[in-house]
């Protein structure tokens, strides 16, 4: 018996994957114990889910037709559906995402050029990289909380929050794209004696233009998705309307309707963005064109479709 246990022990020790799995499992169990996670809580969650699902279903699509008299900022349109929570919230979310992407792009591009080691002195590049990293440390939700405190609730806080995060995130993608451009055009410009800003403006940025446009569109997609989250803390957008129904009314059926509207709009934006971005991806003959089916139900589309 002892011999068999010893052999099993040696068998496990010889296999790195098993060793890693055992260590990770022990760490996970210790963490669960430390966090005092109990299975009974999962049972509570399941019963709560049944209650919420019962209250949420069927979704109340009156959020698409009824005027939101309490809308902020107030809606001046005459037609009720145009002032409905879903339309107002989604429009605001798109507007916040659009402005944040435009402002973020305008701010991040010069910062990215300053952070690219092939365009800037090493010291400046390091300093700007640290600034971009600092902007990325806080998620957009925390930025939204900060700006709601600074400028009050409403879309302005959302735009500022998303812009800050966009600068940090897009700036990193952009300086990596700029560092990836071919060395030779930059050397031609340096041999001409051009200053760094002209090298970046006329050689590096146009050379990386496809990547930069693709990244900007990706960032817009990202901002649309996250624009709904920042609303939960009062920074405007559809999230703000969801929060209104959740607390204190707990109108889950209306929240579910808003979630469905948001889902549909996000997949439409994703699809448009994918199609536009595919025009800017180099050597894209091996990349399959995006399909509607794959976006709506991703697991139905095989990789070689």
């Amino acid at each position: 018996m002892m011999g068999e246990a010893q052999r099993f022990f040696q068998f496990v020790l010889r296999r790195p994957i098993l060793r890693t799995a055992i260590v990770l499992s022990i760490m996970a169990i210790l963490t669960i114990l430390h966090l005092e996670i109990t299975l009974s809580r999962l049972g509570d969650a399941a019963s709560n889910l049944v209650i919420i699902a019962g209250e949420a279903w069927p979704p109340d699509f009156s959020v698409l037709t009824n005027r939101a008299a309490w809308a902020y900022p107030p809606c001046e349109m005459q037609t009720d559906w145009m002032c409905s929570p879903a339309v107002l919230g989604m429009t605001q979310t798109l507007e916040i995402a659009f402005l944040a992407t435009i402002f973020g792009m305008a701010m991040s591009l010069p910062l990215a050029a300053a952070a690219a080691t092939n365009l800037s002195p090493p010291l400046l590049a390091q300093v700007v990289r640290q600034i971009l990293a600092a902007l990325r440390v806080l998620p957009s939700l925390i930025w939204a909380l900060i700006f709601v405190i600074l400028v009050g609730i409403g879309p302005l806080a959302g735009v500022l929050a998303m812009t800050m995060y966009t600068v940090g995130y897009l700036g990193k993608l952009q300086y990596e794209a700029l560092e990836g451009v071919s060395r030779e055009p930059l050397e031609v410009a340096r041999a001409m004696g051009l200053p760094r800003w002209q090298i970046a403006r006329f050689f590096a940025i146009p050379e990386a233009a496809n990547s930069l446009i693709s990244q900007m569109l990706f960032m817009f997609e990202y901002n649309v998705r996250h624009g709904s989250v920042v609303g939960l803390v009062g920074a405007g957008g559809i999230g703000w309307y969801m929060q209104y129904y959740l607390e204190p009314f707990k109108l889950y059926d209306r929240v579910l309707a808003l979630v469905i509207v948001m889902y549909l709009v996000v997949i439409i934006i994703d699809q448009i963005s994918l199609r536009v971005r595919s025009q800017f991806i180099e050597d894209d003959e091996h990349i399959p064109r995006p399909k509607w089916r794959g976006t709506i139900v991703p697991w139905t589309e095989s990789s070689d479709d």
Partner: protein
Amino acid sequence: MNSEPILSIQSAEIGFEDSRPLLEGCNLEIRPGEIVGIIGRSGIGKSTLIRTIAGLIRPLSGDVLFSGANISHSPRGAIGLIPQRLGLVQHQTVGYNVLMGALPNSSWLQSILSLPSAEMRDTTRKAIAAVGLEDKTLTSVNLLSGGQQRRVAIARAMVQNPQLLLADECLGELDAETARDIIGLLKAIVEDHGTSILIVDHNPVRARTFCDRVLQLRGRTIIPLSEEEQDETTALPQYRGDE
């Protein structure tokens, strides 16, 4: 011909590490309007020499002088470079790439606003016409053949109008006819503007044919061709611009 050299390399060590220079004891003088060819086997340091002269790499020791002053203080736009892979801005048009040659002469405001003067646009149009690409002005350089891309790089150099043009293997593996056309364009730059050209070419016969002087990189330094080598590299008529 003016006797003052436009480029003077004096006892220079060239490379990336002090302990292991690629080239040692390099001496070279190029005078205005002169076409000098440099040949040498692959990996010997021809491109590194060109990049050093372009001011992109500092010499490990010795001097690289442009009109008597350190190369790093050469006037803006005085040195033009056509690298091995031409250094064109990809996905941009022929017109855009050629116009880039005018940047050293543009004002700060023109650059900021991306508004080239009428003179710059005119010079660009003429350079594109001179290399025979008028109908490709709005075509992306990616869609051009290798020979056409070389013409774009030469048109950019024409617009820049440098005092010294450095061409690193810009004839590449071109067929004889296309190479002859490109050589004709380079000679036109010399005749029209008195530009000096330092050209690196792996083909000694071709270099000997169109250069005023051909040197070689051998034994980690720059040396002239021996008499025997000069005989071996008798000019071939297919590379003559005046054929």
